[in-house]
């Protein structure tokens, strides 16, 4: 099995902030097949399109998947309203996740806002070798700090208003660090700046992208993103070629 559809029972649910929710589901084979950085495509009753949500944590032994997501519209609001005991119709695991490589290397993870959850499972594998830099609007929106720490990761937090941790951009925190490899997920401006820093320092960097999706499996060519390879530019697809890409292959617009 590469991926499949399954009705997954919700076994735990938590509200992390005003609009961010945390769900754990029983996912059987899907959980066993899942890799860090992959995503799931969640059915929402009455909606034509599924909603892509990154896999935040994988428990192969218990065969569970964890999702942390923000309410952005009707789809995510419906998912947030689902309760333990109910089932979600999930298509997973999809896409290519992070290539962890040698987990004894010094890794830095950079996450912005709702871009933080997709990093958790990957960072877990690096344990104490990982420094996790997370950026949020303010103290109220800080999430998953303890979760990363439980993995042995070192966590630094930046907030836009200085109400928690460093006052400023999360990417500023990269300045004082030494690392062999970078992993990032978050808003485009943040990713762009992470890629620039990685290029400047000659460090390999993997970033996770978002795009509007239909099929989620690579059939419809809906989720195009501009990529380059061997100097040639073309449209790849976030759901099949990504969502995680080597920073060098991504072409930024504008």
């Amino acid at each position, binding site marked *: 099995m590469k991926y499949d*559809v399954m009705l997954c029972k919700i076994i735990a649910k938590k509200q992390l902030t005003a609009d961010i929710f945390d769900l754990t589901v029983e996912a059987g084979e899907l959980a066993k097949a899942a890799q860090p950085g992959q995503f799931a495509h969640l059915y929402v009753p009455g909606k034509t399109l599924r909603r892509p949500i990154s896999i935040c944590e994988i428990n192969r032994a218990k065969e569970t998947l964890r999702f942390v997501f923000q309410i952005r519209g009707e789809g995510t609001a419906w998912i947030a309203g689902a309760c333990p005991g109910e089932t979600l119709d999930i298509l997973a695991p999809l896409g290519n996740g992070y290539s962890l490589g040698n987990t004894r290397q010094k890794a830095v993870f950079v996450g912005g806002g709702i871009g933080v959850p997709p990093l958790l499972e990957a960072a877990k594998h690096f344990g104490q070798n990982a420094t996790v830099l997370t950026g949020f609007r303010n103290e109220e929106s800080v999430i998953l700090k303890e979760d990363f720490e439980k993995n042995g990761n070192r966590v630094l937090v930046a907030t836009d208003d200085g109400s928690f941790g460093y006052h400023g951009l999360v990417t500023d925190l990269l300045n004082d660090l030494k690392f062999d490899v970078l992993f990032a997920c978050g808003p485009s401006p943040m990713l762009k700046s992470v890629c620039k820093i990685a290029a400047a320092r000659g460090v390999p960097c993997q970033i996770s992208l978002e795009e509007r999706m239909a099929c989620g*499996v690579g059939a419809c060519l809906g*989720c*195009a993103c501009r990529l380059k390879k061997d100097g040639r530019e073309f449209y790849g697809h976030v759901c099949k070629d990504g969502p995680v890409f080597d920073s060098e292959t991504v072409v930024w617009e504008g």
Partner: protein
Amino acid sequence: MADLQVNIAGVAFQNPIIAASGTFGFGREYGEFYPLSTLGGISCKGITLAPRPGNPPPRIAETPGGMLNAVGLQNPGVEHFIKNDLPWLKQQGTVIIANIAGNTPEDYCQMAERLSDTDVDMIELNISCPNVKQGGVQFGTSCSGVEGITAAVRRHCKKPLMVKLSPNVSDIAEIAAAAESAGANVISMINTLTGMRIDINTRRPIIRNNTGGLSGPALLPVAIRMVSQVYQRVKIPIIGMGGISKWQDAVEMLLAGASALQIGTAFFTDPYAPVKILDGLQEYLDKNHIASVTELTGEMIPWQP
């Protein structure tokens, strides 16, 4: 058990459920869920003479009961298809339909000729793509356009020729009649209806191409009406599509006049949609003691005024 087989323009389909062009790629991705022989056929992603990069993103937007797309015919070109996809597809035990689009009538003719020498079972003339600057729908919205291109391709095409119609017209029956008179063997309909969504925060159209094609359940009543109109006008068989997502929709489309069906957007909502539709169709036929699915085609009983 009722017979699900249909024969369209001499091509035998093991059942009437065909994957709609552009929603199923070249089959590999959905082949992970079930053997492709589950399907009656596959209409492959629209191909062009030369490879096409497609439109910039975003290409997708959701709408109430449906979606918009403006993929813009991203494809690796006809030669790549013949070399890399067709051989594998032909081993899957299902009918393979090549969906072709071009910038000029010559493009269409050249592709039809090239594909006539291959193993494809049927050629679907896409003159109804609303998402490309040149070609596509421009050939599909006037009778003379449809007649001209169909007749031209007909001369170069040794395979059964299916012409795919656009719903963005005032009188679709007229267009279908033009295709028939020019030598089409089959009509497939409908392609997407042009639509737009706007992001109220950025004030930008959600789709980078500004407009996109509407597909999905929202389209169903329009598709049913148009298939019924065309069925009353032409003698050649119709492959009906547009918003089919349940077996009930499939029955409705057959009753309206379709001999077989394509499903597209339904894959996105539920990859197993064709399996469920086939099961439902089989049960419906058996329960109603209908021996063959072909007995449904056009059996709607219109109300007399």
